[in-house]
């Protein structure tokens, strides 16, 4: 891919399928992270949601990025539950935002949609940077994406940079004391553990980078 390459609905399908695959493989790992500071279900929740997403894919009109992302968001909201359901679900609904009917979008459009998604996650969850949530992965990724756009990077390179930034953010959750979500009940005892949601967010971005670099 090069800077002027675009993100097609096939790219999005590959991303979603890749992420679902990764969640399958990391179901136990994410659940284990959640059992340390939460209620031992994050991997189970995300896997349940994305298996449902895969089941719905065939029914989604092809060649429509917006319809695709909207279906993902709706399905997650309807099947995941917990904190991650509304958060990931609304995030994907916002991603769908302006791309309804479009067979493909460019990186700038994608990044603008990601901005809306993050805004919605913050609006719903009332969390901020430093609260030890998925935002610890999303916010650095957001910055990386904007820089990539400015530098005219390709979608694949942009997402690779975003995934790398998210991974740093994910690792950065370890020392943090949670102030939102179930982990916050632990207070000080939440420090020393990696946040499950930040981890799944890193996996989500990495799945996009992997899928699109293969394109």
């Amino acid at each position, binding site marked *: 891919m090069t800077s002027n390459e675009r993100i097609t609905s096939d790219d999005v399908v590959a991303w979603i399928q890749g992420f679902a695959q990764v969640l399958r493989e990391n179901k136990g790992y994410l*659940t284990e992270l959640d059992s340390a500071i939460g*209620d031992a*279900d994050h991997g189970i929740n995300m896997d349940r949601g994305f298996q449902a997403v895969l089941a719905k894919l065939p029914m989604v009109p092809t060649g429509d990025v917006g319809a695709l992302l909207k279906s993902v968001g709706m399905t997650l909201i309807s099947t995941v539950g*917990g*904190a*991650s*359901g509304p958060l990931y679900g609304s995030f994907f609904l916002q991603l769908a935002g302006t791309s309804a009917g479009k067979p493909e979008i460019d990186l700038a459009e994608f990044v603008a949609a990601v901005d809306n998604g993050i805004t919605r996650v913050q609006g719903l*969850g009332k969390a901020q940077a430093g609260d030890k949530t998925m935002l610890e992965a999303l916010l650095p990724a957001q910055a990386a994406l904007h820089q990539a756009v400015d530098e005219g990077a390709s979608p694949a390179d942009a997402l690779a940079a975003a995934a790398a930034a998210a991974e740093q953010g994910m690792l950065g959750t370890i020392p943090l004391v949670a102030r*939102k979500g179930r982990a916050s*009940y632990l207070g000080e005892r939440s420090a020393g553990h990696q946040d499950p949601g930040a981890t799944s967010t890193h996996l989500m971005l990495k799945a996009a980078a992997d899928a699109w670099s293969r394109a």
Partner: protein
Amino acid sequence: MKKLINAPDNVVDEALAGMLAAHPDYIRIEEPNIIVRKDAPRAGKVGIISGGGSGHEPMHGGFVGMGMLDAACAGAVFTSPVPDQMLAATKAVDGGAGVLHIVKNYTGDIMNFELAAEMARADGHEVSAVIMADDVAVKDSLYTAGRRGVGGTVLAEKIVGAAAEAGADLATVTALCQKVQDNVRSMGMALTSCTVPAAGKPTFEIADDEMEIGVGIHGEPGRSRMKLATADEITEMLATPILEDLPFQRGDNVLAFVNGLGGTPLIELYIVYNKLAQLCAARGVTITRNLVGSYITSLEMAGCSITLLKLDDELTKYWDAPVNTPALRWGV
């Protein structure tokens, strides 16, 4: 994992099917996994719905019936239900007088109920919500998710359900539910962990000589991990923070609720109640109503929780009012 189950993924569906088979005179089950009072909606009556992750039985489904809930939404084990469920439940029970959502204070529950309320209002339903957050084990703060909703929820559902049955309007039952929240405090402890069926292994490790004080109903770690103590010491460790938080004062009348977490037998709960009664008496707090049993559980976790609700004539009247559900029944 030692459980009487078939497949982890079928636990909730099969338990609901069993509930329906056992209580067809009380409830009906509608998609997606909502337990609805047999005769809902009742014209002119405010609908009372609640819900949450499964694994806390009999809460909430066992409380659906006359004088308590009109519907309960059963999520996956320990995972809040999805908005579709609360939306469907709201539609199923709205008798034209609006619907109250009783929500336990967990990020997931809050967000899913909020999304559902948005959709329901968009469909023209009048919806209000009250957040139950009574677990004193969690230090409260504006900057955190706040306290967990635990045992107080059971009492709120009974009391608010009675008011709705008596014809109170949405604003009144909403205020009443908030009043219960403002006057109820709880704390729990675990002797053993629970095991989420889909996870397959205990949520937390705990040694044979340890206990977890302040545990959450999802096996969330609590205030502190300690060496096993006697029932009297444990009761004091739970009751003291509860009594001092509200605070409950000399002369107060309270409802004392000693709850089993799923793996603890009744004989042990009575031993705890025995000490709790002594502790309240010593502080001049009078237990005028009580409930002893396993009503809000954490799968097979062994342990207990204590809930105290400060009573006045109004709360007492609605607590005493007839209730007829699979799990709570009197006056009928």
